[in-house]
């Protein structure tokens, strides 16, 4: 359980204090236990369901539509330069 939590924390790119880890870990455990109830069902032969809504083929034609203005697109960016969204240096 503790490992699962740490893994999820890492994937979500968040940091937890020891106290939060304790509290959220126990809450997460409760949630998983609750969801685990589903395993009591026999779903042998049942296709996994991707969508509960009975809709298919919701498409649009390939027609251009006006984009946002550049200024509007950049408005919420913490930092911009030369028309680009500036982010911490990406190191591979």
């Amino acid at each position, binding site marked *: 359980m503790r490992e699962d939590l740490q*893994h999820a924390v*890492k*994937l979500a*790119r968040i940091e937890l204090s020891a106290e939060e880890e304790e509290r959220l870990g126990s809450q997460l455990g409760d949630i998983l236990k609750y969801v685990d109830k589903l395993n009591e069902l026999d779903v042998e032969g049942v296709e996994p369901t*991707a*969508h509960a*809504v009975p*809709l*298919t*083929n*919701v*498409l*649009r*034609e*390939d*027609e*251009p*539509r*006006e*984009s*946002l203005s*550049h200024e509007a*697109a*950049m408005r919420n960016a913490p*930092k911009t*330069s*030369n*028309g*680009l*969204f*500036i*982010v*911490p*240096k*990406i190191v*591979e």
Partner: protein
Amino acid sequence: MTYEAVIGLETHVQLRTRTKMWCGCANEYGAEANTNVCPVCIGLPGVLPVPNAEALRKTALAGMLLNCDVPSYAKWDRKNYFYPDNPKNYQLTQLDFPSTIEGFVEFEFGEGIERVRINRAHLEEDVGKSTHFSDYSGVDFNRAGVPLLEIVTEPDLTDADMAYDYLNALKAILEYGGVSDCNMEKGQVRCDVNISVRPIGQTELGEKVEIKNMNSFSGVRRAASYEIERQIGVLREGGTLVQETRRWDDAVGITESMRTKEDAHDYRYFPDPDLMPHTPSEEWIAEVRASVMELPLARKQRLMADYQLPASDAEVFVGDAALGDYFEVAAKGAKNPKAVANWVMNNLQAKLTETGGSTADLKFESSAIGELVRLVEDSKINSRIAQDVFSEMFESGKAPAVIVEEKGLSQVSDSAELEAFCNEAIEANPGPAQDFRNGKETALNFLKGQVMKASCGKANPQMVGELLKKILGS
């Protein structure tokens, strides 16, 4: 011990559409940064993506050209990961129900035809483009959400050259189908290469190395060739290989390990709740299938078989489909299709290049080139005059026979008339005539030229040669 390489390729190709995959922003290269963007493609909250019908059509068409099946159910999945060029923090892709599956590509390799199986060709979205500066990186989202076709092969390729030839064949097919422009300079084709080696005879695959994000086919060939040698070298020295991702350094010509975290590939795929499945009807599939065209390799083989063209000519007509179509019409019923091909490839193409026109603009009938060839073959005109007739055809659109008639260009094959021309030429040029008598063969060409000139190019050159020899020899 001898080893063999096993190579599989994942090729990403941008589809040629007017708009992006989920929104109406232009799918356009080279625009000012962050101008073809909207709330959908920069991942603002609360937006609803709607799939581009044309992208689905092009995907199905690509699948058909790659001999894939088009299943009646396809769905969208979220591939979750954080990266600055991925604005939604997930990429939309097709995990377990892709739009097309299980096909193959046939291509020329060495002396024969090679077949590589295609596992799937599925649709996903491109990400933004990063530019790296010394202290930070910058992201342009114009490319984010551009429809991207991923073509995944089975591990059927066995060497670097074969991978290279496959990629070129794939590119030709996709260009032919109008599926993608496959412009390498614009980054429209990118490739991940999976390579392993194993002792010959072993069925089990070796540890797989992935080389990511290659953007040139020659780079793939160099990287694959290097990596195969490297892996064999490690095994020969008793070392072991690990499954890893490596980066190709083109300047140095080596691959190097990219240290990646263990959980970096935990993508937590799940069905995208915003996008409904695509269930193409039989009619929809039939409609797409109606636009399937002859593939480049099939066309080449057919042109060679039907018109007895050499491979190089057939390749010209495969590379320039419009010119090839024109050739086929022009060669209809021609006795000597190769001669028609020469006119189309040389004279016609040169004229078209000169005028900037296309075969659609031509004034003369498509059968005219065949007629022109026949006039030469039947010795009605010589090939020199044929050039003039062709130019006139191009200008006025008149039929070759009409031009020959109107301009009095018929070849002079009357021996009495020709003999007179020959005697005149010999009398006027006693020096070269004597040279020939003294055994200088080339002097004959000079005299022949004089006769051709005197006859305004209409003399039958073969007869002139024979006559001159006869007169000078007696």
